[in-house]
Each structure stands twice: as structure tokens, then as C-alpha cells.
């Protein structure tokens, strides 16, 4: 079976190659795997995720995501790919003019699911992230940690085949972090999603097998 993500001599850079962040990385990630990515601040963790959802084109080497060559992917194909990826952003990226409930089902709105399906899914996910009470509020009325959980719920709302999460527990206390880890574990274990999580702290209690990549000095190394 083809890998969900396959990087070969992947080089990522900003400013047309002047600012190289990741150099010659080679790795592959299979369907249903759970991967933690750690590394110092500024090492390129968010940059690596960016290349996987196509906001940064690989400078050199190849990167295949969900069967698409990210250097040659067309705009319409990229949109198609993104509809099946769940992304959690370090800075949340919620739509402030929309209610929490509507934000959560953004991926369903984009795919054109009916309002009924949206409603059911929003209720279920908000209950999972303990935000049922806040469904009709707006993002700016929530705390940072609450907004982060809305972002996690949104990433999961369409049962994506790939989840890319950038510091999904960065702003959360131990209890809320536990809720998020459970959700991600569950998506991987029950729904066979591939999950990549950038974090500075791998949870001490984790119930499923995982891989661990460290990004350092421009290299991506796997810890065994």
C-alpha cells in the first residue's frame, strides 16, 4: 500500500531558497500511524506541516501527500486534497464572525453536507471537547484554550484521512490536554486516520503505539 506521506530528499526553504529550513529529509508515514514531531522553537515544525497542506511548495526533493506530488499539484487538486485533511493551527485560525458551532463544521459546509448533518456533528464534537455550553458564542468570547479546542473539533469534523495538528495542547491545562489526546488517539485507532502532531511535550500516558520525529538543525530524525 502507498504511504500517506512520502518525503524523499525533501528540502524546504523560504524566500526562493535563500532561507533553508529543512534539508534533505527522507521519511514515509503509513495510513493509521500516529507521529509526534518535536524540536526546538524555530526548527521548522510548523514549516514541515505547511508543506504537507500545500501552503509551502517544496524547494527541492519530493513530497507526496495522499497520492499528490506537492511540487506539481494544481490549485484545484490542492483544494480537493485539503477537503480531506484536518488541520489544527498553532494560532487557531477560527473565523471570528462565525459562531463556535459553525466554525466546527466548516469542513462539512465546504463539502456541502446538509444542515441536519452539520448540527448533529457539531453537537457531538462540542460535547467531546467539553464546549457544548459555548456553541452559540463567537471565538473572541472564548479563552485561548477554548478556542484551541474548537480548532481541534473542527479538524475532526469530517473524519479526515490525515490530521495535521500544530501544538494542539499548547494552551491547555492537564485535563483539557487529556481530552484532546483522547480524541486524536481515537481518530487514529478507531477511524484509521494518519495523525501528525507537533508538540513540545509528548504525553506521559499514551495508549496507542506512536512514532517520534525530531527536527533539529535542518534534519528530520526518527527516535527509535
Amino acid at each position, binding site marked *: 500500500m502507498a504511504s500517506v506521506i512520502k518525503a524523499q530528499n525533501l528540502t524546504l526553504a523560504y524566500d526562493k531558497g535563500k532561507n533553508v529550513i529543512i534539508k534533505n529529509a527522507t521519511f514515509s508515514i503509513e495510513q493509521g500511524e500516529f507521529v509526534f514531531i518535536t524540536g526546538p522553537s524555530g526548527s521548522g515544525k510548523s514549516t514541515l506541516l505547511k508543506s504537507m*497542506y500545500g501552503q509551502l511548495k517544496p524547494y527541492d526533493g519530493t513530497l507526496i501527500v495522499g497520492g499528490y506530488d506537492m511540487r506539481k499539484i494544481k490549485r484545484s487538486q490542492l*483544494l480537493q*486534497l485539503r*477537503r480531506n*485533511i484536518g488541520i489544527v493551527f498553532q494560532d487557531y485560525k477560527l473565523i*471570528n464572525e*462565525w459562531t463556535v458551532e459553525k466554525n466546527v463544521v466548516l469542513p462539512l459546509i465546504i463539502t456541502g453536507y446538509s444542515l441536519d448533518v452539520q448540527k448533529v456533528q457539531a453537537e457531538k464534537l462540542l460535547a467531546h471537547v467539553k464546549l457544548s455550553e459555548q456553541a452559540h458564542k463567537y471565538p473572541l468570547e472564548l479563552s485561548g484554550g477554548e478556542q484551541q479546542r474548537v480548532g481541534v473539533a473542527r479538524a475532526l469534523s469530517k473524519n479526515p484521512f490525515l490530521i495535521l495538528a500544530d501544538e494542539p495542547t499548547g494552551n491547555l491545562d492537564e485535563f483539557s490536554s487529556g481530552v484532546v489526546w483522547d480524541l486524536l488517539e481515537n481518530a487514529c485507532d478507531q477511524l484509521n486516520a494518519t495523525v501528525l502532531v507537533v508538540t513540545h511535550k509528548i504525553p506521559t500516558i499514551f495508549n496507542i503505539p506512536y512514532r517520534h520525529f525530531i527536527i533539529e538543525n535542518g534534519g528530520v530524525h526518527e527516535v527509535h
Partner: protein
Amino acid sequence: MKSIKDHIMFILPLLAVLIGIEFILIFGRVTKAYEEKLRSDYAIIVSSKKVLTTPYLRSIDSDIESVEAMNKQKIASEVVSNIGKENVDTILKELPHFYRIHLAKYVTVKKLKEIEKELKAIPGMVTVDTFGESYETKRSLFSVVTTLLNIFMTILFLVSILLIIKQMEVWQLAHKERMQIMEIFGAPLMLRSGVLFKMAFVDAIIAALLNLGIFLYVQSKLNNSLLFKYIHADASIFFHVKDFFIWLGVSFIIVIISVLFVAFRASEAIEE
């Protein structure tokens, strides 16, 4: 009430464009009516040794509509009163035929000169009088007004378009973030700009309705006015129902261009 201000800032320049368009439409109709009046009042007077017929003259120039023979008797008696009946008959025999030639449309002065030349070239033609000077005066007055109106409308359009672009930038700022987030989750352009389209189409319809109100009001005030009598038209020259659809069409085109402009500018730039 920031959002109401947003709408007004879009509706007003749109309305200005629509008012401009209606002025142009009205002026076009007034021009046509006035030219028709000038045309129907106008005739070239010729005298010819030979009989002239409409088909013959038409074959010479297609802008000629008809030819009408003038009463020789009347002309002769006007010219020569106080002479005997026999003398009049002799003179009548000698006199050429007089005709009034009507034109099919209100032609340019240049074209009029051309027709004059063509008529003079007809064998047996004695005199051709186009009254070129008075024709030209009426015409140049009209073309001055047309030029002024065009300059005024061009300025109005430019200012309005600038205002619309300005408002588009405001919209872009307001919507950019949402559209970019939607794009990251794979929303196609049409979905991303859906809200903007809805908003802008509503504004376009409001602008067209406001314009309708304005011109219906003005029309009711101007009904039976002397202006219309002078150009032999009535108030119906002022507003035609099809104008409303022209406004709608124009404002929809402006809306589509504006929204796509905003949506493209808000598209994420893929870094390389």
C-alpha cells in the same frame, strides 16, 4: 452600524453610475427625437429642367427619402405678379421644375455636401440649395451638448469606479481572513466569495430600485412640460421599462468584477 455604512458606500457610487447611464439613454432618445424633428422639417430645394422621381434620386443616394414637386404656378405668380395670363404661361413653360427633396435621416454636414454634389451632377439640374449654414448651426449646437455630456459622464464614471474600488479594499480587509481560512480547508473560490456576492447583488438591486424611484419621480414632475413639446416627444422618452434591466445588467457586471477582484486578491499566496 458599520455594516450599513459599508452598504451605502457601495450603493452610492453604483447609483451614480446608473444615473449616468440613464442620462445617456435619455439624451440618446432626445437626440433622436430632435433630429427626427429637424429632419422632417428639412428639405433641399432644387430646380431642374428634367422631371425628377423618387426612385431615380434614391438610386443616386440612399440617404434621400423622397422628392416632392412644388407648385410652379404659385412660384411663378409670386415672382412675377402684375403680368398677363399669357405671359405667365410662357414663363411657366420656360421655368424649370421645382422640388423639395426630403432626406431619410439626419446626415452630417459632410454628407450633406456630398449629396449636394451628387445632385448638381444630375443632367438638367439648375439649382441646388441645401441651406447648409442653418443646418450646420443646429447641428453644432447639438454636438457641443453631446460632447459636454460625454465628458461629464466619463468623469462621473471614473470617480464612481474609484469609489467602488476603495470600497472593495474595505471589503477585502474585512473578508480576507475568513476567505483564507476557508481556502486552507479546501473551499473553492465561489464558496469563499459567496457572502460577498450575496451582499453585493443585494446592493446592486437596491441601487437599481433607488434609480427607478428617482427617474419615475422626475418623470412625473416633468410630464407635459414645454421641453417635451419642443422636441415633439412626451414624458415617455424619459424612462423606458427596458432601462431598468439595463441598469440591473450593468450593476451586476460591476458586482461580479468587483467581488472576483476581492476574492482573487484575498487568495492565499503559496510560498516558494
